[in-house]
């Protein structure tokens, strides 16, 4: 791929919309935080490095590397942020992530069986829909199969949640 001969300026719309630019900026901020955290933890002395010694120097390296990504984004801005998601089924991704977060919070109080059953059914019926009865059979077999394998065969504890009185 031929490189662009013209270097874009920071105010150029191509740069502001560029995914490379925002990626570099994000890591620059993370690098600055790591440097600060390293200093905060204490650098110690060169013959007795402290807890923050490695973090501080890695943070500085991150600052340098993210600066180089930023500089490169002026030379070749690459794909725009919006184009990364154009024509994709991003709503499905968002739905799955939301479901996983909800699952993470409901998992312990409600229990593995009801939560996982609900998760599988929603994924199979709404994200990439299949027949409801196929979804139902697969979900039930999978969830109870996993429960039995982990708790009975492998003796690994899984949260029973609201079904604790019945599952023991």
């Amino acid at each position: 791929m031929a490189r662009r001969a013209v270097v874009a300026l920071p105010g150029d719309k191509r740069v502001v919309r560029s995914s490379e630019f925002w990626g570099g900026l994000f890591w620059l901020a993370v690098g600055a935080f790591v440097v600060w955290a390293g200093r905060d933890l204490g650098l110690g002395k060169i013959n007795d490095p402290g807890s923050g010694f490695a973090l501080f120097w890695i943070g500085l390296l991150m600052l340098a590397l993210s600066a180089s990504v930023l500089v490169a984004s002026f030379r070749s801005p690459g794909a725009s942020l919006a184009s990364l998601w154009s024509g994709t089924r991003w709503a499905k991704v968002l739905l799955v992530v939301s479901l996983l977060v909800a699952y993470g919070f409901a998992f312990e109080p409600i229990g593995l069986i009801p939560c996982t059953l609900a998760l599988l059914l929603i994924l199979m019926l709404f994200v990439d829909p299949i027949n409801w009865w196929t979804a139902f059979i697969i979900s039930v077999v999978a969830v109870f199969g996993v429960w039995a394998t982990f708790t009975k065969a492998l003796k690994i504890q899984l949260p029973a949640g609201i079904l604790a009185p019945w599952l023991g």
Partner: protein
Amino acid sequence: MDIVSSLGLGFSVALQPTNLLACFIGVFIGTLVGVLPGIGPVSAMALLLPVTLSGSPEAGIIMMSGIYYGSMYGGSTTSILVNIPGEAASVVTCIDGHEMAKQGRAGPALGMAALGSFIAGTAAIIMLMLVAPSLSRFAVAFGPAEYFSLMVLGLMLLAFMTQGSIAKALLMACIGIVLGLIGIDQITAQSRLTFDKLELLDGIGLVPVVMGLFGVAEILSNLEKAIRREIVSSNVGSLMPTREDWQRSAGPLTRGTVLGFFLGVLPGGGAVIASFASYAIEKRLSKTPERFGKGAIEGVAGPEAANNAAAGGAFIPLMTLGIPPNVVMALLLGAFVVHGLQPGPLMMTQNPQVFWGIVASMYIGNVMLLVLNMPLIGLWIRVLRVRYAILFPLILMFCIVGVFASGNAVFDVLIMTLFGVLGYLFRKFGYEPAPLVLAFVLGPMLENNLRKALILSQGDLMTFVQRPISATCLALATLCLLAAVLPGLAAKREVIAQDQS
């Protein structure tokens, strides 16, 4: 102990019924995840890490190793029949393997992939067996400075071999080290980057990070686009390659095995690079390079031999130095640590039954894979017909349960989700997660050795360049960096990266 008696000890361990079963389960699951696009050996090994806790260390590690080399076998089936690589090391097999399948020669392509993998896998184990003991005697002389420099070299090599920008790859490695340092400092007992969260005091678990970055992120990326699969044929016919096929493949098999083994040993190398390098070499050496891409069996034999030999070679740095050369080996290191074992130069003397048991199990595993793959092709084809809409919720369920079981903490499920989103965004923005995971595992060791080296040398930084092994490693790491930055070499690296993508 000489090699023959050591191997005898190994077989006495590997042939125990529990270990045989562990080996079988490992290679079976490995082949299955190799066949299935959307889940790779890394996710499967992370998933099964908690399961291995209930057995002996030998059984657990034999199973995990089986998953790795088993997936190398399985990946070729999907590449040949569906033109989608089951896992990354089988990408090149798609080119000629699928063409052969379209010409009605799926059987010989699958047969050559399985037999070539068997030959290369077995040869790699013999080389592992011969090289590891002498290297481990040499590695006893390593001090903190040598270990630090070797890890720097490993990370630099991985960053160099990673697709795209070296700055991004090194950034990922830095993030990995920072993440690895979260938790209580082993030397000062000070808590670092824990944000007053009790759950973070022990650090972030390897399993949720790996499952998130490789398992969940892969699902999110796949969901973005509708996956369409076209299986060429359900009737593959005879699997045995013809005499002419063997004649054409003898050279590629030999070269692929040797090349794959040595690339596997190098940190950052591994099966993916080995398969690409083998394909490129075979095409260049061929008297009829125009046949490549149109169903040349050499294009299947070479890369398949190379990726299996690399899988064997990758065990060397882990077993002899205790340093994982790639993400899969990083996970295997995690498995060793979980079982209270420290791979490294002393393992062969302190735990010979583990080392030789694993080596012997690999011989058995390779035979199992050959027996498993030839008659079970039909089963794998049926597995491939399962729709992704059914597969991905099940994979997600296994990720969640596996992650929870690994630490018995719901917090880990949330960490997995977070890393799933991060992994998805990394792919979008062109950042490779592999250097992050390797650095995450090496981070604490790297920092520990750096601090020890500085304390021992009373703060003299010259210790890293005055010690010959350390100096050599750092010089090679600098060469890698220069090679990636210098315009001429950077352009060549870019071409390789584009070929891979």
